[in-house]
Every structure is written in C-alpha cells, then in structure tokens.
C-alpha cells in the first residue's frame, strides 16, 4: 500500500511542479512547496487512459483509506488553480499522515508537515477566488487549507500543524527535583511576605515522667514540634530526675532540647499530679529566666495534641496571650454519665478559652463545665473514668519569655516578678497568678473562636509494666502454642492428620449445635481457615 502511494505522490509532485511553473507566472519562489496532491492533474497534459488508471488506483486505495482519501479526491476535483496550491500541501500532509498511521513515530509527520506548510507559505499567492470556497466548506468542517497571516514576513502559519511529541514524553527526575526546589523556595518567599514578619523562637515547656504511656505521648509531641517552621527549643522537665529512656527519646528527636530534672516523683493521684506539674512548669520558667532565653513560651503537655496554626498564632503575642483549648474529657470510660435530653441540649462546649465582648476585648473566661461528670471522675492515674481539667489549664496560655526576665525593656507592670511567685509555698494554679492584673491577657486565635489545641489525659495504671526503652530484651519466647498452628517440635503428627482431628472435633460440635448441618460445606470452610 505504501509503495503504491509513493510513486503516485511523486507523480503528483512533478505534475504540480509543471503546473506551477506554467500557471503561476508571478510566483517567484520555488514550487516544490506545492508538495503532493493530485489536483494539478487537470492542468497537466495527461491522456485519458492515464486518468482512467489513476481513477482506478484511487478507488482501490480509498477502499483501504476510506473517508480521508475520498475527501481528498473530492477536493482535487472541485478546486481551482490557486487552491490547488493550498490543498496540495495539506493533502500531502493528509496522505503522509495516512501513511504514517502504520508507523509509530508521529514526529516524522510533524517535520514533514512543517516543511510543507512553511515552504508553502512563501509560495502562497494573495488569497482570492472565493468562488469555490462554498464547495470546499461543504466538503468538510476542518478544511485543509493553508494560509499565512497574510503578511509574507510573518512566520506564523494558519492551517493544519503537526502535533509535536517528543520521543519519551515522561518526566525527567532531575527536572522533577528542580521543580520541587522551586516550589519550596516559592513557599518560603510566601511565608516571608504574608506570614509572620519576624519569627520568634518558640520555647516549649513539657513536664513529663517515665511511665508506660510516656513514649506514646512524647513521640506524638515531638513529631508535631518537628513540623513547626520556626526555631524551637524544647524544655523537658522530668519528675523523679532524668532517665535514660527520656534522654534517648529526646536525643533521637532532632530538636534542640533542654532536659531538666525535677527532684520530686510524680504522684499517683490526679490532683497531686496536677500540683506537681504546676511546680515543674514554674521550675522550667525559672530555667528560662536564668538562661535568658528569648521567645514565646508555649505549655505543651506531653499528652496534648497541637495544631500547626497554634504556632503561627502564638507569634502574635505581645506579653501574655490565651488560646482556646478543646477539652477531651471522655477517656473511654465504660460508663458514660447519663444525661437527660435537656442536659444534652444545654451541654456547654468542651472548650477552655478567652471570652470576648462585642468590641473584641477580653471579657472573661470560658471554662470546662464539669457538672455533668460530678462524682464520676478519675482520682487515681490509670483509672477508667474521665479525667477532667482543674480550673484553667496552663496549655491555654502563652507567654513572652521577656516577661519572666528580671529586667526587660517594656515589661508591663501588671506582671509579677517570677521570684515573688510561689515564695510562700502557695499553689500556682494557672498562669494568671503570674499577673497582677489578669485583664491584660490578649485573646488569640480570632478571639478564641479557633480551637488550636486539644487537652487530653490518657494514662495506664501506675504499676503497669512496659519494656525498658521499648526494647525487648531478652527476646520473647513462646509461652503458649497457638491452638491451630502445629509446632513441628511439639508433636510428631503430620499437619494433615492434626487437621482431620480438629475437623472431626469441630464437626461434632457443629452437629450438636445445629440439627441441620451441612458437613461438606463446613469442612470446606474450616479447611480454608486453616
């Protein structure tokens, strides 16, 4: 098929060449741009037999190529000289595309088409002769006509172009890497323009102690802290002195940390634990004061969960700010407090945070309502009952560390000096005790509308065992063999025999259970399970 086409197109080219030279007197450019197309046949001095043969050949070919070729013929029969030039190029393109449909590379189509159209552009006489346009329009929607933008200097050609596809249209890994670097840099610039202007260091204060759930809580917290885009220092105060377990966890975190030991051990009652934690936090604040650390102090208890927006929001704090904390008090207790429908309707939000008046200033505090839980809360750590916050939780407050320094520029006078706090052994219930005037606290997070972190207390029983550092040493040995998995060492019977044994037992059980038993299917099922 291809072989038959090529000599034909060559024939057409030569005939067109003669036609062009004879017909287009004014055309200065090379007529090779005329390309294929058989239309010029009408002008060329050809015998009728030749025409008959040509026609027969065309009919034969149109059987193979169908619509495209027959449309081509239609064009050629009805077009005039000027349009011969225009159709020849594109028809050759169509022919060539027809031929290249049998091959795989589309690039060849493109190059050849381009050369045809480009050289044709030079040869195009000014568009005229609207007479036969209607016929052509009637022929096909995507009329194969070529034309320049009208100006011989323009290299933009109107008409059909090839679709340029490179040989391996897949991403190059080096370029993908570069694209990702570009995006990272763009995002960094975005943060610089629209994000916080001068990001301050974040000082995260976490009281902790070694227990079963410590690894769980600290791992979650350290992953959150690793994602914070600001410089960060993690101040970990450990009750009962520093332990290797905690130290190794901190060392593996990749964060800048300060590990401070606290002499007292963590008590087993929630109320006492609460008080000890408060003292540990004050201890941390004293450490910040001594080292003159500069930044925003965030109280992140190890079991709490923090959102990324929290760290963006706390950058805005001037001296002391308050955020809304979601209180998650239900800790999987088996018995939920029974509430009447009315109580359920009026259930207040489990949120602790600042409450604002209409002008956006701090008006008061919204605390967690513990009435529905009265009498059913946990007293001992690890008890299966809801653990509730006591008053205002530290987690909902953030401080500017300069507030803690002995002398800092612009330190407001409504802040107590840290040394004066806790002197007389009094309890520091919440950070408001650090202030003389609690009304100057700034509400953050759109005046407390956005809950930026969640308070949760989940602990195992105080005496629960867990492997030291979560490393299993010595390796576990099998205590009890699994019921249906035969151990080669424990029995000399073949697995299949054992299987039959089991099946017999189960069958007997099943037949006892259901009167209408289908032993065949049940055994099959059992077989699959095994």
């Amino acid at each position: 098929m291809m072989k038959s086409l090529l000599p034909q197109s060559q024939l057409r080219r030569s005939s067109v060449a003669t036609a062009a030279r004879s017909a287009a007197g004014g055309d200065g450019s090379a007529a090779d741009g005329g390309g294929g197309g058989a239309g010029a046949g009408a002008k060329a001095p050809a015998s009728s037999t030749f025409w008959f043969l040509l026609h027969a050949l065309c009919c034969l070919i149109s059987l193979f190529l169908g619509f495209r070729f027959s449309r081509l013929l239609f064009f050629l029969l009805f077009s005039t000289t000027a349009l011969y030039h225009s159709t020849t190029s594109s028809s050759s393109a169509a022919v060539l595309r027809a031929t290249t449909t049998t091959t795989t590379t589309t690039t060849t189509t493109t190059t050849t088409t381009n050369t045809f159209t480009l050289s044709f552009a030079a040869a195009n006489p000014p568009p005229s002769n609207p007479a036969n346009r209607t016929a052509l329009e009637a022929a096909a929607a995507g009329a194969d006509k070529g034309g320049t933008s009208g100006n011989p200097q323009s290299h933009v050609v109107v008409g059909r172009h090839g679709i340029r596809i490179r040989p391996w249209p897949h991403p190059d890994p080096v370029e993908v890497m570069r694209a990702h670097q570009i995006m990272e840099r763009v995002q960094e610039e975005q943060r610089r323009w629209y994000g916080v202007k001068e990001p301050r260091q974040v000082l995260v204060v976490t009281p902790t102690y070694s227990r079963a759930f410590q690894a769980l809580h600290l791992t979650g917290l350290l992953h959150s802290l690793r994602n914070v885009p600001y410089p960060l220092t993690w101040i970990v105060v450990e009750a009962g002195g520093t332990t290797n377990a905690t130290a190794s966890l901190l060392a593996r975190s990749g964060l800048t940390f300060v590990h401070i030991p606290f002499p007292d051990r963590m008590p087993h009652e929630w109320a006492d634990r609460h008080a000890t934690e408060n003292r540990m936090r004050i201890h941390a604040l004293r450490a910040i004061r001594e080292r003159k650390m500069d930044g925003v102090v965030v109280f992140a208890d190890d079991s709490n969960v923090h959102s990324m927006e929290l760290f963006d929001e706390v950058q805005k704090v001037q001296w002391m700010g308050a955020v809304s904390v979601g209180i998650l008090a239900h800790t999987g207790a088996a018995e939920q407090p029974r509430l009447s429908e009315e109580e359920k309707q009026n259930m207040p939000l489990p949120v602790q945070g600042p409450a604002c008046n209409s002008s956006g200033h701090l008006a008061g505090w919204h605390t967690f309502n513990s009435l529905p839980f009265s009498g059913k809360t946990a007293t001992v750590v690890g008890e299966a009952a809801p653990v509730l916050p006591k008053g205002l939780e530290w987690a909902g407050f953030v401080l500017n560390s300069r507030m803690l320094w002995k002398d800092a520029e612009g330190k407001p006078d409504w802040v107590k000096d840290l040394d004066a706090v806790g002197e007389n052994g009094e309890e520091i219930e919440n950070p408001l005790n650090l202030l003389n005037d609690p009304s100057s606290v700034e509400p953050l997070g759109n005046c407390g509308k956005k809950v930026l972190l969640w308070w949760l207390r989940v602990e195992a029983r105080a005496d629960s065992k867990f492997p030291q550092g979560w490393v299993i040493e010595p390796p576990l040995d099998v205590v009890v063999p699994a019921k249906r998995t035969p151990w080669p060492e424990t029995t000399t019977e073949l697995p299949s025999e054992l299987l039959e044994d089991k099946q017999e037992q189960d069958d007997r059980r099943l037949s006892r259970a259901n009167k209408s038993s289908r032993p065949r299917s049940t055994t099959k099922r059992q077989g699959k399970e095994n």
Partner: protein
Amino acid sequence: MGTWGSPLALAALLLLAVVAAQDTERIEGSAGDVLEDDPVGRLKVYVYELPTKYNKKMVAKDSRCLSHMFAAEIFMHRFLLSSAIRTLNPEEADWFYTPVYTTCDLTPWGHPLPFKSPRIMRSAIQFISKRWPYWNRTEGADHFFVVPHDFGACFHYQEEKAIERGVLPLLRRATLVQTFGQKDHVCLKEGSITIPPYAPPQKMKTHLVPPETPRSIFVYFRGLFYDTANDPEGGYYARGARASVWENFKNNPLFDISTDHPPTYYEDMQRAVFCLCPLGWAPWSPRLVEAVVFGCIPVIIADDIVLPFADAIPWEEIGVFVAEDDVPKLDTILTSIPMEVILRKQRLLANPSMKQAMLFPQPAQPGDAFHQILNGLARKLPHGEDVFLKPGQKVLNWTEGPRGDLKPW
C-alpha cells in the same frame, strides 16, 4: 534651599528605602512608568449618541452580553458616559467614541455571531458621518472603536476568513481598541490598543484564598486540548500546541492539566506557580487576566502574540514566553528558569497596579483597564498632521469590501 536640601534629601532617601523594602516592584514598560497615570486633564473624549438599536436594545435582547468575555465594549461605553474626561462639546474633543456593540449578537449557546457586525459598524459610521461633521473631517482618524471580538475588526471567528476580510475598510484610519494582537497580522492595525478580555472582577474577588496558602501545584491548566467538534482530526485547533501539551505532559505529575470544569478553578490557580495560557482558535484568552489576578506566572504559548497594554506593561519580565515549537521541552524550560527570575516575576505580579490594570471593575477605579485605555489614547496625542484631511481629500472607499457588507442594517 541649602538648609532645606539635606533633610529633604534624607526624607526622600528614607521613603525610597521604605518603598524598596516592600514586596512589590514598580512596573515600567516601554512607555515608562505609566500604569498609574491619571488620564484626567490629558485628553477629552466626545461620546456620540447613537439610536438605541446600536447599543441598549442589543443588551436588552440578550443580557449575556454583560458577562461574557467580550463585555468590555459595553462597560467602556458606560464608563465614558460618566467619566471626567467626557466632554459634551465636540469642538474641544481629542477623541470621538462610537458606542456600537458589534459583539452582542449571540447564538443560543452564547457565542457572538460576527456575520452582521460589519453591516452594523458600517451603518453606525454612516449615521455619525451624516449627523456630525467630525467623521468626514478626518475620515475617522481621531475616532476610536472598541472591537473585542476574536480577530478584532476583521469580524470573523475563523482565522483564514478573518485574514481574507481584513480590517473593515471604513475603519482603516480609526484607532481600534481590541483584544486580539499578533505581530505582522492583518487584523492588528498599526496604532491599535490591545486590551485584556473581560473577566468578572467581583466573581474573582469572592474566590480569593489567604495569600499565605502555599503554592504547591507546579503547572496548572484547565481547558480543551482537542476541539473535536470543529477540528476532529486535530492539528488545526491552537495550531496543534494544546494537543502537544497534552500528549507530552499528561503523564507528568508536575503538570496539573485536564479538561475538567472544577468549581475550585480560581482557588487552584492561586495554589499554582505557573499557569499555562496557550492559544486556542485565537491567541488571546481570559486566562491571562485570571493568572495575573491570582498571582500565577502566565506561561504564554502563542507565537508573535501582542499582549494587553504592551507599551505600559513589560510582559517579557512578568510572563514566560514559550514558542509553539518548544512545547515538548516545556518542562525543561520551566524548571531551568533561575530562582531569582521566578521570584521577581511573582513580585511584579503581586503589584496591585498590575492586577488593577487587567480588570474592568464597576464602578471604575483608578489604574484599571478603562484608565489604561485612556492613557493609551492620551499617549497618541497630539494628533499628527495626516489626521486632518485637506478639504476635498478623500481616502476611504465606501464601497470597498464584500458585497454582503454593503447591505444596510
């Protein structure tokens, strides 16, 4: 002056330092730093009063004219009627505006039909030349017309037909304000002003996301790659460039391209670094306006295109131009742009005067596209000597053009 000089200089320096420290850069085109010029006082425009069949009745017939991408002609008329540069005395006018809406004859699907537009334009010009002497005085050389259709005043949507028709003969001396622009093209007359297509400013503003949302899409495009209805075999639509984009990059995860119509189109553009603006049946599209408004660097794939307000806006510094032949190498081209260049382009795009210059807000605001058009007209003043014809001199041939255009409307 000596005692006052140094503190003033210091103050000026401080001001410059503050301005330089800001994120945006001033935009200067070939005509200079003209985006924020105020046209008031620099020119006077006289608005002809045409019978309502040329303007108001067409809008009343189909109100979709007010929201499609060709709506600039209607809003320009409304702006000029209430603008400070309008004069009711035609003797002192520098420019004359004819409010004829040639792109308001819509098909049931909302596409403007250009077949009657030459007749409508001709009829309007006949009207003004008979009623007022100002057209004949200059044969339209100090008149301007807004022709936002696909190929401007060639009044056809198919490029070959548009080229054949050429610019309407009667408009040969007038200044054309059009969206179409391509170098060395019949349908872009010398001295035309290219404008952006109309994109609804209110709709775009309601879809803004916070600017700190990180840009995580590398290249974004939504639209057709093949127009199977009008170009079933391919290669004709967009000169094969869109099809090439699809075939080369459909498997590339960096390119978020598809023919979807997502409701989050505007939001997605704000999360992309590059937005493709390839040609379609005509080289221009509202995508350019959307990309500029949403801060996405436009990647323009349209050979020889002339972009809006090309003398006031240095598009080479703001967008990325890719030749249609280079589309297969698009990923290489985009990833090899130096980082400083990309950041500079984003800074230029962030400039609010850039975004303002692309929009047609109602009511008009300083620095918007209406004012840029007037600035462009003001820059063409004062009129040259060949504008005013000598008595008895005639340049235009009123019977030129296809026979169908000569029928009255």
